């Protein structure tokens, strides 16, 4: 009997797959809630606070999309996912958006049938060493023992980098970031390597963060961004342009503090189009005209979100670096709102 239930379910799943692919927007509106996949916990990027409310850099993307679509930044059902469960949850339709510091790669985009809708954080693999080691560049690390998480792209990047520079190293394989902290502090390895943002947040938890430094070399590209299922381009557009709205808002000087004033009395036509006082951009997306305004009001523009969650004022203390606007020498560049 069990078998026939599974077979029956398979048939139904097969039939409904075609129907479910389209019209995510209608599903979200009907449900009244956005299902957003986030990590089960990464300092600064997403974690529930003492009251169970989700906060963080990735969480802010979910809130902005919910605000743009439903007009309510709190109308989000957060689905915490591990590295192993994230892609199946998105493919199976359990979530509408995955904002879980996921690196944009060709195989994920093409082979796994997802659409990355942009980049909300440009990361790269870095190295952390104790200052007393007296090393100032990754090229001085010949013969060093390196703590590295197994089964990640960082492992492969590390091998590539050391081979390219013709220096040797001894890997100390570890399983989780928590274990890495303990091993590194206990002196089991000279160097700890993972994404630079992860290194910074790890260092922030040390008793004496000042005794450790990040080396200037960044040895890989890790563009982290939100993604949606392949096949519903209308929905992909909505998420893509919500992220772009947050980035453009910073560039145009729109913040959550002055947005109402800007919406009424701006002379800049692009600001007027973005905030819906002019034109019909919202209508084209199938949303209300104040969609971008709601998205920005949810937790501020890109710069505000960055500063609040992972910026230099927070314990994590990340500099903008590559994540500055293109006008400031960074890579953030939103296509025009026209």
């Amino acid at each position: 009997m069990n078998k026939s239930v599974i077979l029956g379910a398979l048939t139904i799943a097969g039939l409904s797959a075609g129907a479910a692919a389209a019209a995510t927007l209608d599903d979200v509106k009907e449900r009244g809630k956005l299902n957003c996949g986030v990590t089960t916990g990464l300092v600064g990027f997403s974690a529930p606070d003492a009251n169970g409310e989700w906060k963080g850099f990735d969480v802010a993307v979910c809130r902005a999309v919910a605000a743009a679509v439903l007009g309510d930044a709190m109308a989000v059902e957060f689905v915490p996912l591990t590295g192993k469960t994230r892609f199946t949850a998105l493919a199976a339709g359990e979530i509408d958006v995955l904002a879980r510091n996921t690196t944009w790669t060709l195989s994920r985009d093409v082979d796994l049938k997802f659409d990355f809708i942009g980049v909300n954080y440009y990361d790269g693999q870095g190295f952390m060493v104790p200052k007393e080691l007296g090393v100032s560049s990754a090229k001085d690390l010949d013969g060093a023992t390196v703590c590295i998480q197994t089964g990640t792209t960082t492992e492969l990047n590390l091998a590539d980098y050391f081979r390219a520079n013709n220096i040797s190293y001894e890997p100390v394989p570890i399983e989780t970031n928590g274990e890495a902290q303990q091993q590194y502090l206990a002196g089991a390895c000279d160097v700890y390597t993972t994404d630079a943002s992860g290194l910074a947040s790890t260092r922030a938890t040390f008793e004496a963060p000042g005794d450790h430094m990040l080396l200037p070399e960044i040895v890989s590209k890790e563009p982290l961004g939100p993604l949606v299922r392949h096949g519903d381009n209308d929905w992909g557009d909505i998420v893509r342009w919500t992220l772009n709205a947050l980035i453009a808002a910073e560039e145009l000087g729109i913040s959550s503090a002055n947005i109402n004033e800007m919406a009424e009395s701006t002379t800049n036509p692009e600001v007027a189009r973005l905030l819906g006082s002019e034109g019909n951009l919202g209508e084209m997306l199938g949303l209300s005209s104040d969609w971008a305004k709601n998205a920005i009001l949810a937790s501020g523009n890109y710069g505000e979100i960055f500063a609040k969650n992972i910026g230099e004022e927070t314990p994590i203390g990340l500099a903008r670096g590559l994540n500055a606007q293109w006008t400031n020498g960074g890579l953030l560049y939103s296509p025009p709102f026209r």
Partner: protein
Amino acid sequence: MSDTHAHSVAFVRETAIPPSPAPVNAAGPIKWMRDNLFATWANALLTVAALYFLYIVLAATLPWIVGGLWTTGSLAECREILQGKSAACFSVLTERWNQLLFGFKYPDELYWRPGLAFVLLFFAAAPVLFFDMPRKFLAFTVLYPFIAYWLIWGGSILSPIVALVGFSAGYVAYSKLVTRNFAAGFFGSVVAAFVVWFIGGYIVGAVASENPMLEAVPSRDLGGFMLNLMLGVTCVSLSIPLGIALALGRQSSMPLIKWICVIFIEFIRGVPLITLLFVASVMLAYFFPPEANVDLFLRVVIMITMFSSAYIAEVIRGGLAALPKGQYEAGDSLGLDYAQSMRLIILPQALKISIPGIVNIAVGLFKDTTLVSVISMFDLVGMIRGPILASTDWNGVYWELLGFAALLFFVVCYGISQYSQWLERRLATDHR
């Protein structure tokens, strides 16, 4: 004869000397220490070494525990106050105790509901565990699952009532039909229960009010130690009857039943639990259409129950095999049918032999419930590894949190093991 000496000795004692206390080194603590701690040179050396080891451990941990801070707002604050001194930062427990026990999404104002369900669990379990109690208390045990379900998940009271009515209908149908033959009783009860549930489902859907007496809490919001306890209690209590059925099925002379049981047991035992959990959380999502959201909690309960029932079946099979053949023949010669001889003669003895093994599996199963943290359910360990360590305030607190988790698990597992020892003494009928 005695007269001859009566005048030749000066003094003859006529009463017994009152017992004098034993020499100091042959009684009391000193003797105990001499016997147990310093019996030989080797023992004495080992004792001293052990004492020194204890001293080192306690000297390191006691000040750490006693000097611990309980009221700060973050790890950074703890470090500021301690100024490099080594002491625990228990403030994380003060601030997040509710998340550790109930998960981070269970509504604060509803904590009394799982709390009450937990207290009632003792009343429900007592008649089963301590069978000297009056039998009529078992009525509450039968009702408990429905009460606990309603308390923890809330929602309309009609759903647990319909479930209960369905089971009762199944039982009535069984007792009516089983007199004719067992298969009729079995299938009749299943049909009756499903008919009631099907009709009841419609009635509940139509009648249930928008604002039920207890606010509904979805399964996704359950978490913390509550989730471990719920999974542990549900799966152990479901897997023992299932395990008995499987063990008997494996010994059955009907080839179909025998082979179904053998394949089930061998297949499940050949697969790691974590694989089954991944199937529950990841693969089943592909099989079912997106709308048919079979509750994740239910999926996990099914998988863990299947897993542990296969193990319990093998333990009970060991018990059955240990019984002398004469016991089976005795049952037959008394003219008992299969069900009667199993119920009255074989199983009571086989289960008694199996108690240590079953308890062993129950304890292991309870600890294995922490594995659900890998499929993003926030049980106690999942809460620690995920949300709490990922908060900017508490990243870096390991010993305090994991020590607390270890303490909670130890209390429960030690309790289970003490109970099983009592049970073995209570059931001991041999003369040793």
